[in-house]
């Protein structure tokens, strides 16, 4: 056992251990809690950087522990998992800072931050999981760790939302479990590998593989909020803003989308999936979800609700890119995994800032808010324009590659979906920007942070500005090798062996 074996485990533990300690802290031990939180983040980031540097130099990172007969618990680092690990670590840093500022002075912080850390550990574990069984384990852990965050406020509404969330995700988890069991029965649980490991079984067990695929996709689709399994997501936005940000950008929704990517590329493999004719229905489902989410977002009058429906639509871009089964579209889908996370997390931070600072929850209360909170509104604008797909923001890169990929595999109608979705996005984001920048200011009751030096508490402002800058930079500097785009191209080259 050398350090290359322990590094993946250490990355998971770097948030798990602080989380467990935080549970045991008293409510008034604020400093220690903040130190533990931030210490965990910093350690994790350092380890992730080491991991990326190692993978870049061609080292193999693999941790194995006997778990089930024939299915060990494997944590390993490949290009795809690094994409997700890097995203979740960076956004965890931002969200931790944000959450510390957001929850300042509110009760039950130890419980909150404990589960918060557990949630991130589960996400990172899920990203590093090396086979389906390990993936399933962390996937279920994520469900359980998120529930206390959703119901954190304890209001009847959030409890109801929590119940709906649990019903959906446990149901989905059950289906996923059955899918995993089915595939385990057929082919065992070898490590994920580019090109999949089920290709040899296609002739013999095509029906079972199809059933397994449907089970897996439905199970993962609950978290990825594919219609008609999306009902929990708009409900869950009653959670505090940092939780929504995490839920929508990194942890839960992304876990579903990431799982779909894993199943299609590293379990079935592009060629087997194409032979089994599985992708066309998934493509239609993704396209329908994109349009449905956008139309529903248009009808919402609350900022966070609108953002929630927008997530349903945007996350399906990832599924769309995967389902198109072409290398260029795959780049678009994978890169959107990161880009959507950056943009959506920015939007949720900003929505949280508006609510915390000025008590603004509904869209019509946003009139003239750009003059009171210019930095937050600028960050919001960057996120919103990126969602529409305006260059040079990150969203444009995804849209460009998805469009090219659709044309490459001859599915020209997808272009119509992309353009339609962009127009709908413009329809529900531009009025917000207009209100923020051009409408005459409304009267807000300044509830918090009115006497701050900045427009709001700096711990609320900084993460929003940071992620907005990232969303702008990854779009602007897409040509560099370490950009999400460059990294996605690397992953896709390995999968399609170009």
């Amino acid at each position, binding site marked *: 056992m050398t350090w290359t074996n322990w590094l993946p485990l250490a990355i998971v533990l770097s948030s798990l251990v602080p989380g467990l300690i935080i549970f045991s802290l008293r409510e008034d031990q604020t400093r220690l809690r903040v130190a533990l939180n931030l210490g965990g983040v910093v350690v994790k980031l350092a380890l992730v950087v080491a991991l990326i540097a190692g993978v870049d130099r061609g080292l193999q990172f693999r941790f194995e522990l006997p778990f089930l007969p024939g299915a060990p618990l494997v944590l390993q680092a490949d290009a795809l998992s690094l994409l997700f690990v890097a995203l979740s670590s960076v956004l965890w840093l931002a969200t931790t800072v944000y959450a510390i500022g957001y929850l300042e002075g509110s009760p039950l912080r130890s419980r909150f931050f404990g589960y918060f850390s557990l949630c991130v550990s589960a996400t990172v574990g899920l990203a590093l999981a090396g086979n389906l069984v390990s993936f399933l384990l962390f996937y279920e852990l994520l469900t359980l760790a998120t529930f206390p965050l959703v119901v954190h406020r304890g209001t009847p509404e959030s409890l109801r939302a929590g119940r*709906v969330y649990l019903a959906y995700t446990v*149901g989905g988890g059950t289906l996923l479990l059955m899918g995993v069991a089915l595939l385990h029965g057929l082919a065992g649980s070898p490590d994920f590998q580019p090109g999949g490991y089920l290709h040899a079984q296609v002739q013999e067990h095509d029906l079972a593989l199809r*059933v397994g695929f449907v089970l897996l996709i439905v199970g993962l689709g609950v978290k990825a909020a594919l219609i008609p399994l999306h*009902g929990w997501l708009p409900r869950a936005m009653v959670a505090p803003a940092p939780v929504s940000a995490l839920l929508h950008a990194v942890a839960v929704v992304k876990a579903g989308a990431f799982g779909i990517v894993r199943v299609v590329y590293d379990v079935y493999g592009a060629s087997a999936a194409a032979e089994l004719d599985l992708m066309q229905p998934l493509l239609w489902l993704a396209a329908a979800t994109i349009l449905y989410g956008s139309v529903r977002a248009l009808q919402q*009058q609350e900022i966070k609700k609108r953002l929630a429906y927008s997530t349903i639509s945007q996350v399906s871009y990832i599924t769309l890119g995967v389902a198109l089964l072409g290398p260029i579209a795959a780049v678009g889908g994978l890169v959107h995994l990161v880009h959507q996370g950056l943009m959506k997390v920015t939007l949720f931070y900003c929505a949280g800032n508006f609510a915390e600072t000025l008590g603004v929850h509904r869209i019509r209360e946003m009139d003239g808010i750009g003059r009171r909170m210019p930095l937050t509104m600028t960050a919001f604008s960057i996120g919103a324009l990126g969602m529409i797909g305006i260059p040079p923001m990150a969203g444009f890169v995804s849209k*460009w590659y998805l469009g*090219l990929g659709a044309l490459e595999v001859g599915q020209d109608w997808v272009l119509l979906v992309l353009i339609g979705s962009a*127009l709908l996005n413009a329809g529900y984001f531009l009025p917000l920007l207009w209100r923020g920048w*051009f409408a005459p200011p409304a009267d807000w009751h300044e509830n918090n942070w009115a006497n701050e030096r900045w427009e709001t508490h700096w711990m609320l402002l900084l993460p929003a500005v940071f992620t907005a800058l990232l969303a702008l930079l990854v779009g602007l500097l897409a040509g560099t090798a370490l950009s999400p785009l460059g990294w996605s191209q690397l992953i896709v080259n390995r999968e399609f062996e170009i």
Partner: protein
Amino acid sequence: MSGAWLWLLVPVAPLLAIVLLLALRERVIGWLWLACLPALMAPLWPAEGLDLPWLWAEMRWGGDDALTRAWLGFSALLWGCAGAFAASSLAEDPRRLRFWLFWLLALSGNLLLIIAADALSFYLGFSLMSLSAYGLVVHQGGPQPRRAGRLYLQLAVCGEMLLLAALLLRTSGAQGAFGFESWASVPIDGLTLVLLLIGLGLKAGFWPLHVWLPLAHPAAPAPASAVLSGAMIKAGILGLWRCLPEGDPLLLEWAPVLLAVGLFGAFYAVLLGLCSRQAKAVLAYSSVSQMGYFVMILALAWRDPQNLAALAGVLVIFGAHHGLAKGALFLSAGLSHSYRLPRLAWLLPAIPALALIGAPLTSGGAVKTALKSAFADGHFAAWQDVLSLGSLATGLLLLRALWLMRQDAAAPEAGRAPFLQLLPWALLCLMPLVLPWLWPTLRAALFYSFGLADTWKLLWPLLGALLLAALALRLGWSVPRILRRLPDPASWASLRLKRLTQRPPLVVPRPTAARERWRARERRWNRFWRRGALALSAWVVAGLLWLGWFW
């Protein structure tokens, strides 16, 4: 190497100016027009293009071709003059910081799209310019600019999305290459062509895609209208010129259609403009009409690809001539509206007006003659005499614009125009006379138009227009009542679209909650799922067991 970096500075200089604006606020406003300087210098120092692989693999800015350099030069000149004008005319405006923010963003976008040598840079500049110009259109506030801005933004976003689809189709056709050079030999299909024509045409504003122009121009402040009409709408034409292949059989087929669109637009916009009673709206219609001529140049280039080089020359001198002259006229409209001008100063706006009509000795005369000879060289030679008729129509329209400006002129007790506004305005107004002597390409065209027959061809439409205008004035002609309020389907559709996307802020209570039926359905589904999850799981388990037994 060192020269190539100048290209980077061209679009970045306005962005740096934004940083200065945010840091120094009011103090820097008087100097912001200097942001155009790198763009003005770039055409004078010929430099290689600059590759920017770290932005995006094939990205390339700038180039040594005459079209880019001349286009950049006149756009920067116009933006600079209008910027200097705005620094003084908007000095007292309460929202001037916001104005300058959008101004600089739009400037950066416009310069970028001119120097772009690949489709993505072009699209980047195009959308930056389009969206920022919204801030200029609605700057003055109030219902009229809001309405104009809404229509503008809706059409701009739609146009951008159509353009994106076209660019994707084109890139896909070129196997992923998106440099304009690599597109020159890639054939085009009908769908892409239509998407490009509509997407870029919405910006260029030729008939029938002109609906936003007559609303947006009167709504914006004068310097913003000047750059909108003089520089920004030409982005559409430049884009069409760059994105299309050379000598494609499909373009050959489409050339007559395009020529018909251009010709009809050139005359129809004049008719609409004559019915309009606002000087800036009349000038906007004149731009629509002039865009018809640009479309004709495109049609000529599609029909006779062998004349492409010559037509590129005509395109660029026409662009420079129209951009500067129209900018000068818009500034005149703004200036005469708010200040008292000395009687002699009224001669200055007559110069760009005469140039647009095509009077001899001006840039307009040179351009019209060049356009005529381009017609004569190609397959549409029979249509060249229509151009003289077009000059007559333009003459009537611009005389009406000048007359309306005079009617609208500020009361005698208004103050004298400040020097800082007079100077850039006078500079722009003199450009039609001066530019042909400074710029060799235009000078050659001017000398070419000096023949006796050509001069007469340029002169009679002008005299005819003057005669008709005098007649109309003598007879006391005014716009017939029925034509004063023309139907405006575009505004109506824009309002309907807004109502469709934004429900009223206050929900009107209804006896039945019919509108929430989607949410109700989702709720019902949630309940089903909450109760039925276990049952469903059990069914699936049973099914799987059955499947397992079946094998």
